[in-house]
């Protein structure tokens, strides 16, 4: 009985989706799975704001193919279980595609719903390779896409930037063993840094929720690194840099896009000054100035990068697919999204690599913390 019921869920879900989207309604329903509360809500809220603003603009101009777009946003709290629930709700609401989530763990969990239902999602800042490619079978997940670049790239950029531009030779890495994001960034940094002929002199792990890093920092201090790679979220990164300064560690701290919150500066104070991090995009990116002007005018503050831009890229990709297929059938959209090529989106020309559903040649931004501000340093392009 139970197993029969379970087996029927995907079927029912798929049916709902088809009915929901094929119904001759005046709106196009696009879902959003986003962390609106919890540690990741800073980005989630901003992401939703940006989409609301952009969709209002599109609707004011007459919508897409004469239909208005309706955004249905549900809170995932950046939690995998909640992400699955949210996705089930979105699918049964009849959305044609989903924007988000921002977290790799949530995205991977969501595929258990989107794959059988054949409804695509475009993750905004989920950078783990496993989101779009199933590492057990090595095959690409049909409904999983993303508009940001992947972990290997972020670690690779950081390692290349440290080795080539900053001419640093010895790296120490501190990563969160409880986070896929953090561990993968650390791994790919190590691989690339060693490929550049440099050395990783220390690699230390900690458990999520840790507050005191002085024990491992004391150990790292003994190995004399000149770069301290901290691929964690802003809270841990700020605490690590503060405590490293307390212990008199002089290495230049570097990180990934998890740092990109003003919290890094309020929590880290002077200790974070001079540190570098790789980001998907930046407020100073010349290509997105129009969007930022509108956002500031509407919400009276800056968008929290990069999620708003990545979410609008995703919206652009979905709208393009709807226009090209001439409808909102989720299965047809899925096939069309996989073929997206040279589409002008907010952050630049966008192409999906059909072999792994990642964007091709997505540029990365290097930013630095200088006098309590994020400063744009340079732009890297994927190879």
């Amino acid at each position: 009985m139970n197993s029969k019921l379970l087996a029927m869920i995907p079927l029912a879900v798929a049916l709902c989706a088809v009915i929901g989207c094929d119904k001759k309604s005046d709106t196009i329903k696009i879902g959003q799975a986003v962390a609106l509360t919890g540690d990741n809500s800073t980005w989630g809220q901003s992401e939703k704001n940006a989409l609301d603003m952009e969709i209002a603009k599109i609707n004011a101009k007459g919508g897409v193919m004469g239909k208005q777009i309706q955004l249905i946003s549900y809170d995932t709290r950046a939690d995998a279980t909640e992400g699955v629930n949210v996705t089930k709700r979105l699918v049964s609401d009849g959305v044609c595609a989903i924007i988000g989530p921002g977290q790799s763990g949530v995205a991977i969990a969501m595929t258990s719903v989107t794959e059988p239902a054949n409804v695509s999602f475009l993750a905004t800042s989920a950078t783990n390779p496993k989101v779009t490619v199933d590492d057990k079978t090595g095959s690409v997940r049909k409904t999983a896409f993303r508009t940001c670049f992947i972990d290997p790239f972020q670690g690779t950029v950081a390692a290349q930037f440290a080795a080539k531009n900053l001419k640093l030779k010895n790296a120490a890495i501190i990563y969160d063993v409880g986070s896929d994001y953090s561990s993968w960034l650390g791994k790919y940094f190590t691989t690339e840094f060693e490929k550049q002929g440099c050395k990783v002199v220390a690699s230390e792990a900690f458990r999520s929720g840790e507050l005191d890093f002085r024990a491992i920092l004391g150990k790292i201090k003994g190995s004399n690194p000149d770069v301290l790679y901290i691929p964690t979220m802003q809270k841990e990164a700020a605490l690590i840099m503060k405590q490293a300064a307390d212990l008199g560690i002089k290495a230049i701290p570097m990180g990934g896009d998890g740092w990109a919150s003003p919290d890094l500066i309020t929590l880290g104070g002077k200790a974070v000054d001079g540190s570098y991090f790789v980001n998907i995009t930046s407020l100073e990116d010349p290509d997105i100035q129009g969007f930022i002007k509108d956002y500031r005018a509407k919400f009276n503050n800056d968008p929290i990068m990069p999620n708003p831009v990545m979410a609008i890229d995703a919206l652009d990709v979905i709208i393009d697919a709807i226009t090209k297929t001439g409808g909102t059938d989720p299965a047809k959209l899925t096939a069309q999204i996989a073929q997206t090529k040279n589409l002008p989106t907010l952050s630049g020309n966008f192409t999906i690599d059909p072999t792994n559903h990642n964007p091709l040649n997505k540029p990365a931004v290097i930013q630095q913390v200088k006098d309590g501000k994020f400063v744009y340093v340079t732009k890297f392009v994927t190879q």
Partner: protein
Amino acid sequence: MFVQTLLTGLAIGGIYALMAVGYSLVFSILNFSNFAYGSIIMLGAYISYFSMVKLGLPIGVALALSILGAALLCYLNERLAYAPLRKRRASSLFFMISAMGTAIFLENLVYAIVGAHFYAFPEVFTKRNITFHGVSIGVLDVFAIAFSFAAIYALHYFLQKSRTGIAIRAASYDIQVCSLNGVNDKHLIGLVFCLAGGLAGISGTFLGMKYIVYPTMGWITNKAYIAAVIGGLGSLPGAVVGGILLGVTETFVSAYVSSVVRDVFSFSLLVLLLMVMPTGLFGRFLEEKV
């Protein structure tokens, strides 16, 4: 590296010790673990943060306000949550459940009123550090250790020498006999909670300065509770020794083995110790407590 690790361990252990004393103080009188204590510490941190940042008060005043505020909160916690239970002679299990409820209530109250935002104290002297022969320690750590021990010593002195202190010690053996001898047990218990609350204000302020202020920061007191158990719940010197022991052990495990197995290690140590010494290092059942 050895000296550096030891110093770091002492700094962490000092904070554990301060919080563990608060746990032990309450346990010694009422024989239950006041799990709401972590939330009082968290509120203490918020009080001193907002006094310093929003009201622009100097650190000394903020610390004093935090001590007073946390003491008041701890007292109210006792009056509102525990006193009615005590009147009905409830078993200590219900006190513990009530304490956990209070902890969750306070935490969510902060979420609802202040929000989940992380706050960091302004860098008064949090940034400065002393380096000697390649070994560094933050000025704040030195100050926190010194101040914590001064507070613990003052408390110890008060318990040993003053009339009220003697009454508290007497109550820790048998509160009923103590009240039969003319001690107002209601006032006494209130005072004990105020003292524990004062310590919570101190630890909250230092914890917030050292790390960050956020609603779930009180959970770090789990470690302090473990420290109190290692030292023997209800024993003041035990709480201090337990705190330092736990802090130093953890730091050495993190530095020489791996910080990932740190908790595995420290909690195994706890289980092992309790197997050999069920009442902890200094706990003697119904004997010397405070």
